């Protein structure tokens, strides 16, 4: 396969993963105006939970029907969202609505620190593996290269996730209400919208997407402490490039980062470490609020 096609495929696979882990971040920011560092922790909890659940699934005789492990992966993400979402949003974040954006970043940073150790208390430091779902889909031969079928499943998941989020925001009644809340929470409230419920829903959805990112990643890695910190920085870069709060922006941001990283690995491996920041700095130079930022009226 020729070099550019390889770069494209590799970039696409990585971009799909980036999109899944960052779309929840941008959604939460769009609705709640909180840049959630604990998104990284939710990702890690998703990875741990899915590793435990898939492990348990095979433990109780899932070998007979290994495809069920995919259900366990998704179920893990749902479980994390339903437990952690309300806990964090109702139990903590709601007390900080309307406060300074940067203060809220610190609040979630504190949550991140707490969850980092909490995970260690629950799962210990030893790694968890759930490689079965990773190999189940077999190989795909592209030119002279082998790819794992699972990689393409990740692309499919990313597309489904992206479409689902976009459709539910733009093509459903609830979605339109959410958009109204994003635009002006105060006005929405006076029009009778139950804003706290929208916030809770959006945060749970964001938590689900974070956990889904972790759950999807778990089969291809060794799940162990320190997972979240690496994810959060790349996810930040992606949503900043795309424009905070923009779903299409996250998709474009993920593609830009994914393809440029793949190009760098193949053509200029030395530059891999900065490529993300480089893309981010370039974009912000020309589009200070990211590619797809919503324009905001200045209040006088």
């Amino acid at each position, binding site marked *: 396969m020729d070099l550019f096609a390889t770069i494209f495929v590799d970039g696409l696979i990585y971009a799909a993963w980036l999109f899944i882990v960052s779309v929840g971040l941008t959604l939460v920011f769009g609705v709640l105006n909180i840049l959630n560092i604990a998104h990284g922790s939710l990702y890690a909890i998703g990875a741990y939970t899915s590793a435990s659940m898939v492990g348990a699934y095979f433990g109780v005789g899932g070998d007979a029907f290994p495809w069920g492990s995919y259900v366990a992966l998704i179920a893990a993400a749902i479980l994390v969202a339903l437990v952690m979402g309300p806990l964090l949003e109702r139990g903590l974040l709601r007390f900080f609505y309307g406060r300074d954006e940067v*203060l809220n970043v610190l609040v979630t940073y504190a949550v991140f620190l707490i969850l980092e150790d909490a995970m260690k208390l629950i799962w210990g430091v030893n790694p968890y593996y759930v490689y079965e779902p990773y190999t189940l889909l077999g190989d795909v031969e592209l030119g002279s290269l082998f790819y794992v079928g699972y990689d393409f499943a990740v692309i499919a998941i990313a597309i489904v996730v992206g479409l689902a989020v976009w459709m539910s925001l733009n093509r459903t009644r609830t979605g339109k209400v959410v958009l109204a809340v994003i635009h002006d929470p105060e006005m929405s409230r006076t029009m009778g919208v139950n804003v706290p419920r929208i916030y809770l829903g959006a945060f749970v959805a964001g938590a689900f997407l974070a956990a889904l990112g972790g759950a999807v990643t778990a089969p291809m890695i060794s799940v162990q402490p320190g997972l979240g910190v690496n994810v959060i920085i790349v996810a930040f870069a992606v949503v900043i490039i795309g424009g905070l709060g923009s779903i299409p922006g996250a998709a474009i941001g993920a593609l830009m980062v994914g393809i440029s990283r793949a190009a760098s690995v193949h053509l200029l491996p030395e530059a891999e470490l900065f490529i993300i920041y480089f893309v981010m*700095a370039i974009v912000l130079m020309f589009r200070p609020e990211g590619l797809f930022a919503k324009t905001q009226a200045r209040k006088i």
Partner: protein
Amino acid sequence: MLGMNHLLAVAGTFAVMAAGAVILPDWAMFLIVMALAKGLVCLGIVGMMRGGLVSFGQGLYYCAGAYTATLFANSFGITDIFLLCIVSAVVCLAIGGLFGPLLAGYRGIFFAMLSLALSMVLYGSLSKLSVIGGTDGLNIAAPTFLGWEPEGRALQSGLYLFVSALVVAAGAVMWRYFHSEQGLIALAARDNELRVEYLGASVRKAMTLNYVFGAVLGGLGGTIAALALGHVDPEFAFWTTSGEFVFVAILAGYLSVPAVFVAAIILELVRSFSNLYFPNTWQLALGVFLLAVIVALPGGLGSLVDRRRKREGAQ
């Protein structure tokens, strides 16, 4: 300039701090030196906070200052702390002067994130430069003070007195600046930029100035930290380092200059003891502490002083 009362307060503060050089045990003196060095960086953030901006990338200057001092010391064999501080301050002034006007047009989370990106680029570049130690970093020799070459406890005391003096001086200068016309413009811009512009003042200039002050303070803080530690590495520019500075600034609030340094010392103490007593859960302890502070002191430590002052004023 500063009035008589203020000069007395400045001298008094320094006298009290200087007493620490005699009574404090070595480890506490070192802890306070580090805390004050970081406090200098945070003071710069507080300056920006007065204008409504929070930089998540002050590690850039902390690191630039530390590396400038180290490279300068290692290349020219210069160990004088005064000279090293001046060199770092000049270099950071230049970098700040370059990026300041560029960043002054950004607000809120975008300012925070762009400053973060810049500091991460420095982190990445330094990690790659194995000629200057890569991620392992470099060592720097202990400082001398205008020809005086102390060792052991005397060195710690010297460093402690130097940083105390620097902190008091920087604090006084910044206090003076905050209450100058230019400084108050920044504070007004925090409430309403457009109004300030209509009144004929340049918000951009105020923001640039705040940023440049932050750069110089960051460079000084980094230099002191490098000299105290004897070591620099790219972690100085990592986002968690910058995050810690922001935390101290938030803990202090933007209402009081001394609160910044008190906040820095408190954070160092909490971290040091939680490290030792909860080796497995120190992050958890730190996180709980952060949350508790944010919940209990929404305006920062400085607001305590401010509240009290208002109450006294009312009586």
